[in-house]
């Protein structure tokens, strides 16, 4: 069967391992455009149910954003959110234990007029893995192209804690 390379008469005898090269100038890539949004603090006020007790969550979720253009391939712009849960604090209503989180997550998604980004994060009394509980932050992102690179976020809900016992 004539293969593509056979049709080119291209295959030659075996050569020593190596690659023949020549000077070849290729087009230079265009610098990417990165726009950083203002840092945001999203208030948190929720009552969650862990396996053992109800926990009141308050505080702030800190969000920083970047919009990354792709002038080389003209792919859709990407939105990158860095979400820091370090400002979220929980208090157990029964035990009065204080739950803190050090979690961060970095989420990158195509920039859309509207998107809902979910991020799961643990909170625990100190670093007590055995008493940690997990919550889900749902961040709504609205992008208004007419106004330029305008990013607004709000916390839609903090659903009841998902216990990590199945």
């Amino acid at each position: 069967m004539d293969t593509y390379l056979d049709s080119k008469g291209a295959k030659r005898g075996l050569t020593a391992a190596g690659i023949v090269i020549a000077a070849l100038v290729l087009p230079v890539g265009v610098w990417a455009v990165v726009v950083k949004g203002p840092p945001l603090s999203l208030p948190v006020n929720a009552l969650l149910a862990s396996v053992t007790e109800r926990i009141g969550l308050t505080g702030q979720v800190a969000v920083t954003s970047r919009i990354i253009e792709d002038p080389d391939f003209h792919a859709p712009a990407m939105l990158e959110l860095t979400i820091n849960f370090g400002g979220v604090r929980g208090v157990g209503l029964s035990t009065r234990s204080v739950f803190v989180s050090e979690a961060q997550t970095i989420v990158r998604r195509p920039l859309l007029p509207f998107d809902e980004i979910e991020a799961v994060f643990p909170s625990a009394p100190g670093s007590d893995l055995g008493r940690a509980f997990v919550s889900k932050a749902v961040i709504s992102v609205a992008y208004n192209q007419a106004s330029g690179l305008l990013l607004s976020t709000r916390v839609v809900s903090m659903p009841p804690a998902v216990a990590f016992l199945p």
Partner: protein
Amino acid sequence: MYLSASADAQQIRWAEQARRNRQEIVRALSHGQVSRRDLLRWGVFTASGALVAKNGFSPFVGNAHGAIPTGVPSSPKFGAIDFSAPMPRCDLMERRDISTLTPTPRETANTTPVQVRGPDGVAVTGPMEGRPPGPMWAHQGWSNFSPRIAVEQWQRGACNCDDYHPGVDSAFNCGIDPKVPVKPCFHPKMAVQTEQSLWTFSGNAPPKLLLGRYGEPILFRHHNDLPAKVTSNAGFGRNTISTHEHNGHHGAENDGFTGAFFFPGQFYDYHWPIVHAGFRTINTTATDPRCGAPDGNGGITKLPGDWHETMSTHWFHDHMFSFTSQNVYKGIAAMFNLYSSLDRGNEAINDGVNLRLPSGTAKDWGNLEYDVNLMINDKAFDKDGQLAFDIFNFDGFLGDLMMVNLTYKPYFYVERRKYRFRILNASVARFFKLALSNGAPMIQIGNDGNLLPRAVMLSELDEMGIAERYDIVIDFSDYSDGTKVHLVNLAEHQDGKSVAKNLSLAEALSGKSADPCVGRFLEFRVRGTKRAIDKSRDFSQPGGMVLIPNPDLSKIPIARERTFEFNRGASQTTRDPISSALGPWGVKTDGGATLAADFGRVSALPKAGTREVWKLVNGGGGWDHPIHIHFEEGQVLARDGKASNVPLWEQGRKDVYRLRPGGSITITLQFRDWGGMFMEHCHNTVHEDNAMLLRWDVNANGNAVLTPLPTPIPKPTGVEFLAPTETLRTA
């Protein structure tokens, strides 16, 4: 990119024909019959490295009869069901006393004449050892760090594993009987790989694991027993190899330099002294027990060096110039656990030094019962079920089958206690972002080869670039007997440039993603009606999260700052037929031109004994690069110009630096103890091969003048040396 299960027969036929066309090109490239320049000249690839949008070639172009992209045929699974095969532990490499090694290893290369195979398979007379000869490539520190342990491996084509050593009882290994030969297949229902399809250490699966401890130098003798003819490779891969211990602190002659490859019929002796960095200048009288190693009797052997530089999880893999992606994908990869007084692999020894990370207690060091290596990657098969490598463009190859320890979507039994998992991204171009299926927290204790200054509790790990290692602790104590929890990948790809979308846990578990490697890929099956005995570290105690602080570099002046920008649009300024590569990817150093790889070109020449700051910049927004710097660990000073942008899990030391699209990362490194020529490159190994790699030298001779080193040019008849093709003015 991969066709859905509902693709019709016509689509599948077109896709299969296109794949055959592309595989012909991969085959011809690997055989040396065509060059990348040829492909550009014929219009097969565009100047930017994209496969020409052509019917019958590109998976992204609609067929002549309709608008639907041909896509890529899905890999056949031959009826393999997800989570129906046990995940095997890695196979331990045998460690022997150095006296058993024949011929006796030498400080300089052994040039005894033997028959060496050239690319056409014809034997010629050449040196027994493929290491470049002479004093420049002699093992540094040979006398002071004489090898004590010999590890001898043969790189060969696939065969059964008749001598499987998981290092644990079968009860800890899903009941796998080590006396039953292990066939080289990715699942019992999948095809057995031929010796031309899969190449690996000893030719067999499971992947190999080497255990080493500080103060116990290893001589790794690697025999090239691959098929003699370069064409005996099932269409991809190159039978000349170079082995990189990622990220060992040793002389360049042992680092697997991309141009120091060797031929079938030869071996290469790699001398790994296993020392703490800074041993010449810090703690030189070895008085600090934190800088030490298990002594075999419950105690510590104190060693010179900086205990802050202790490393834990390494791996080693092939680094053949322009063929790293194909050879690593083909199986030339293994893991390497390093043990120290801090991380000794015995969770019960409570001596005030040992961090007691989950491991086991039976042996003095290196217990593996609760310390599990996970090599994760994506593979693809041809229609016969043989491992296949494809080119769509030069952005990166993605498989559609998730593997853990070379097993398709396996299960793994765990007891109700804490486990340490050493996770390695061993893919060619795929990033992963991991979470547990129920969102349960994990504790990340390590990043790349280094335990963190402080562990971090997370539900979603950060994206993992190729070659990054994340060590995590998962606590299964509170699960009931029979519970199943899965490791999930949240990073959805459309191509090899970068992650297209980070999915939420719900999205990833929904099964709706078009990326077959998203979602559940490893099933943990919890066993036990009560909690298992767990003597490992209690992270909840005060100070429980504190591990290994970074070395304080504030008093070490910064000798130099450099900027490396990773771009498309490389230009070629040198023409050596062996050392130069052509491709769309390149590196711009200190504001110069973006240059394609040439391992004869010296791009940086840091002075031994100094510290520098390197800024790594992503020149584009449409791609990501995990940049690896050989030899030295770095500390991340800033991301996108700010220290506050550095997340907690990157505040330790690293050796792979994921730039992120449009991003930059600033690091600081010291250059000390050893010298030679090392590399810096993108670890998306398709980018590396096309040609995003540079060489930097450090001349440890102490001379005031920084002298670039001659470049080795291996041939079957012996290694020649050439002057560097170029030394950048800014080097």
